[in-house]
């Protein structure tokens, strides 16, 4: 069942000081997110990701088109009871401590008393801020604010969360924390819609992704489907070798590299793979792994974005600033 339905969503911004002209930030976006999915929203800088999320949060009014969350129009206040949102580069009241901020956020959802205290504490621990729970946010680093932001987005135990670049500004441990939190949300059946530039993370946790470029949707679908297309061969890793073995394998495989006592073999087709494997078994070499070679999301993303036609929207876009 679609939990987010986006139909022909379009947003123009007026830019220019004297003569305002519209610049299309988002162009007739159609997209659906299903319940329970972890959905990655990708695209280069300025693609329109944040614009889309702000439209969904009803912070921006669409120029045309519409979007629904949980079956209700995005302007419905009641629907917001069920969702969470982490803004891009978030900023919160710097005179509050994490405990105060989460308590305030909880009250806006009608929470109170022990329940609110319990959730506040467990969320602060979850995002790894237990040691700074009562320190004013003005003394926080960027990554710490980002963590508080994630915590406040979850205070109402939302059915769906929208995270705009949740990993930005985080150290490697912080990124792992966010990955863990997203996975645990997913395990609880929470739908997660997040934008990100960190493709390995996206690849590791997403069910489906959409790629946006210059305000237009390039592609949307299951990660496996998107990447499957491009299996270009297999990589076989073997222990030992050297000398004549290497030479003989060179006759079978397209590529042979010796690295740290291991042979990395690359074969393009199935027939060569079988020959190579038989050779490995006959010579009693230690087989370590066989993996399909396919483009990473990163490579796919690069080819997608660079292949996109230019001038998808008024060139005035660059005039901003």
């Amino acid at each position, binding site marked *: 069942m679609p939990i987010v339905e986006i139909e022909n969503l379009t947003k123009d*911004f007026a830019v220019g000081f004297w003569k305002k002209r519209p610049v299309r930030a988002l162009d007739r976006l159609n997209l659906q997110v299903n319940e329970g999915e972890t959905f990655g929203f990708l695209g280069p800088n300025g693609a329109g990701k944040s614009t889309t999320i*702000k439209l969904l*949060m*009803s*912070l*921006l*009014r669409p120029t045309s088109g519409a979007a629904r969350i949980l079956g209700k129009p995005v302007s419905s*206040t*009641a629907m*917001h*009871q069920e*969702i*969470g*949102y*982490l*803004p891009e*580069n*978030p*900023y*919160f*009241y710097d*005179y*509050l401590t994490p405990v*105060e901020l989460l308590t*305030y*956020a909880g*009250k*806006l*959802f*009608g929470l109170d008393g022990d329940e609110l205290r319990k959730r506040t504490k467990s969320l602060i621990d979850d995002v790894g801020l237990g040691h700074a729970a009562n320190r004013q946010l003005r003394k926080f680093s960027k990554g710490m604010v980002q963590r508080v*932001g994630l915590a*406040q*987005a979850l205070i*109402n135990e939302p059915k769906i969360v*929208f995270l705009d670049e949740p990993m930005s500004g985080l150290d490697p441990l912080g990124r792992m924390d966010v990955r863990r939190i997203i996975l645990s949300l997913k395990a609880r059946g929470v739908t997660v819609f997040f934008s990100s530039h960190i493709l390995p993370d996206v690849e590791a946790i997403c069910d489906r992704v959409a790629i946006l470029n210059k305000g237009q949707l390039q592609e949307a679908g299951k990660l496996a489907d998107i990447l499957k297309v491009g299996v270009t061969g297999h990589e076989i890793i073997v222990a030992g070798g050297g000398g004549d073995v290497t030479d003989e394998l060179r006759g079978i495989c397209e590529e042979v590299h010796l690295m740290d006592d291991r042979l990395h073999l690359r074969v393009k087709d199935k027939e060569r793979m079988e020959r190579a494997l038989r050779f490995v078994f006959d010579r009693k070499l230690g087989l370590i792994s066989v993996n399909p070679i396919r483009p990473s999301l990163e490579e796919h993303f690069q080819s997608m974005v660079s292949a996109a036609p230019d001038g998808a929207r008024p060139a005035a876009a660059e005039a901003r600033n």
Partner: protein
Amino acid sequence: MHRILAIAGNTFRETVRDKILYNLILFALVMIFSALALGQLSLGNDNKVIVDLGLGAISIFGTMIAIFIGIGLVYKEIEKRTVYALLAKPVRRSELVVGKYLGLVFTLLVNLAVMTVGLELALWYTGGADPMSYLRVLAVVALTFLSLCLVTALALFFSTFSTPALSALFTLFLWIIGHFGNDLRNFGELTKSEAMQWLCRILYYVIPNFSNFQILDWRYVLQPSSENTWTIPYAQTVDPGMVAGVVFYCIVYVALALSLGIAIFRSRDFK
């Protein structure tokens, strides 16, 4: 309603932790003490110095707090982008504006209460004031508080669409010419030109009339009263109808300013 209260509570906390507030209060204290020291030099009549200074300080500093914190309330929320996370919660934009307003009004109430207690204590300490004087001080402060509610609403209204500097300018401007509301009407009646008359009449109704809040003249606060009534000999009487009128005027004006502010705030894109 619980959301408005939560927002008001947070706004109160924000203002209490705001440096501006402390600067203003410190400034007020320095002013009062230096003036009191000067007052010691003048002959007798300590109470008059105390009342004039005290009520003056309450009015001026109350107005400064209302304007300088009021103009930042909504603006800061947008400028610092805290509004994103807030409005993505089940919070109506109108609730945000009203909550912010009530929060600052509460800050003002607490401030005025503290300053008034100080003033009454000073009055009591020097002694010799008519018992009714204490109540009259309270009445003047209550009217000042009403006028501050209006100033806050104006500051908040401007801050929904303009920068703090401009909002401060607009609010201060209205506050100043608002004290000449009655003069404006009188001038309109005297002038010959029909157009001028209309202009004055329109301005009279559009500009908040702050002279309405001065129905109690400070000069009479210390006058001995007869028969323990509000009546002050040779001076003025406080008519309950008039007070009710001022309260009503204040409520209507605040409601209008906030509604307009909400309408503007609603139409905004937060980019």
